[in-house]
């Protein structure tokens, strides 16, 4: 056997005409099952149901409402508290505070990152501030905030803004820095003011990082808010979900406590799955910057 094959013995040919496959053969329709399991919503709902069933089953085995209430009684409690309006009012209260604090935090974050990317002082300031404040738990500032702003909305807003600014600024700044030189030069070629350069080139180019910054800030803000409400629980009367949980725990109404927790989870999932999902779909996915999930 030789390692080099003898081509002179091999048949050569040129196809007389290339027959293209008909479109039916190129595009094969998916089977019904494949279609269903290609839908992320359906897949995740099924997963959720399974987890819910495990909860229900385990709670029946434990059979102690003070340790682990059944999922069905939690849902019933949630329904009941919503019907009489308490949970709705509490949730509304929390969400209002959250949206205001989040918006202020993101706004300040934008200003800081824009300064950081256009000036050297701004960049030093951002790097220093994020290094200092990002690891500082917002809730640790609450006692101080209560001294400055009194007990109530002002203090909660303060810690909320603090918790939202830094993760957002850190992610956005990292996103700006990662924009390729080519894209920057292509942008600088278009006679833009520094502000427009950030708004029209860097911001869309860094959109994946900005969105992940928005998500992380949202989660941080939500957590901080609930934690702050729990601390305030004993003194504030018009509180939010955190206060609801605190109050019901004092009454040993465990299904209500779980209902409050579950509601926090549901709101988180909705914001992630609807608001941010839509934002991603309209921006980074359409622009080919992110794969669809």
């Amino acid at each position: 056997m030789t390692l080099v094959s003898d081509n002179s013995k091999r048949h050569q040919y040129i196809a007389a005409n290339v027959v293209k496959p008909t479109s039916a053969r190129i595009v094969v329709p998916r089977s019904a099952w494949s279609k269903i399991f290609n839908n992320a919503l359906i897949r995740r709902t099924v997963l959720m149901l399974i987890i819910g069933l495990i909860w229900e089953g385990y709670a029946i085995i434990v059979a102690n409402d003070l340790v682990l209430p059944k999922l069905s009684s939690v849902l019933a409690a949630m329904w009941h508290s919503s019907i009489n309006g308490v949970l709705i009012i509490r949730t509304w209260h929390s969400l209002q505070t959250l949206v205001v604090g989040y918006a202020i935090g993101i706004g300040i974050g934008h200003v800081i990152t824009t300064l950081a990317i256009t000036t050297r002082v701004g960049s030093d300031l951002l790097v220093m501030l994020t290094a200092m404040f990002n690891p500082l738990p917002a809730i640790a500032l609450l006692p101080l905030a209560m001294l400055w702003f009194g007990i109530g909305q002002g203090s909660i807003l303060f810690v909320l803004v603090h918790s939202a600014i830094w993760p957002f600024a850190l992610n956005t700044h990292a996103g700006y820095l990662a924009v390729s030189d080519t894209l920057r030069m292509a942008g600088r070629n278009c006679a833009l003011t520094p502000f427009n350069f950030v708004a029209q080139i860097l911001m869309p180019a860094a959109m994946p990082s900005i969105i992940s910054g928005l998500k992380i800030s949202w989660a941080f803000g939500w957590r901080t808010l609930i934690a702050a409400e729990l601390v305030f629980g004993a003194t504030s009367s018009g509180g939010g979900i955190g206060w609801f949980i605190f109050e019901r725990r004092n009454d040993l109404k465990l299904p209500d406590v779980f209902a409050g927790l579950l509601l926090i989870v549901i709101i988180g999932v909705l914001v992630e799955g609807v608001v941010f999902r839509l934002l991603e779909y309209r921006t980074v996915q359409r622009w080919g910057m992110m794969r669809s999930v």
Partner: protein
Amino acid sequence: MKASTIVGVAKPMGIVARNTVTETTLERPRQNSSEVLVRAENVTLQYAARASVVTATWRVNFDVHYGDRYILLGQSGCGKSSLLKAIGGFIRPSEGCISIRGAPINGPSPERMMVFQEFDQLFPWKTVLENVIFPMRARSWTRKDRIERARSFIDKVGLTKFANAYPHTLSGGMKQRAAIARAMAIEPDILLMDEPVAALDALTRARLQDELLRLWEELRFTMLFVTHSIDEAVRVGSRILVLSPHPGQVRAELNCPASGGQSEVKDFEQWITSMLHETNSEQVAEGNAV
């Protein structure tokens, strides 16, 4: 290097090469400046590295005339892209001066639109049409004019069907076409092309080169084209600046054979090749000596 080395290389008739190494030969006959669009005088470009300063080009002189298809040719490390970026206004020369229409270049401008080698130069958040329209913010054209003009240039580069497509759905060749359309559509003083077709496959590359020439025949713009390919330089260019590397210096400035036979073009290419090889082997020899 001795001034005589270049004589040893067989060169086609009528081409006079200048030696670049001794400083006296840097003096060159001044040309009628009314024809000159871009003039580079004694341009030295340097990059500040962490510990030292790296010189990309050393006292480079050249003139680009109106309607030139001016090629900066050289191997990697000869500073050709840096020169282009300096003309684009992205780098400031540490010595010498680059001027356009007699005015020194001061920062990037839509009058000097750049086309890059990289495929990510299009704004991914804009469709092809929006990409082509975007730089027109520098012009006082009406919105209707802009769209019309953008469409006509998109037609010219053969992307009519893809005007509303986002860049990530296009192939590499189509992206480069879109970038060329974007740069041309605002009618800049000069088009700066940084190896715009180097990252494409050979077939697409040849087709784009031909299309570029066809567009030039039609519109007679001025372009400065950076390449490392001798073949491409001779094919696309009307005048070639040959640069020797480390640091980039002018080795020769040549007119392309306008309508030569195949053998003449081949000789010309051969001649440039030997010129580049010669600087190369000298460097190796120098390196060994040190």
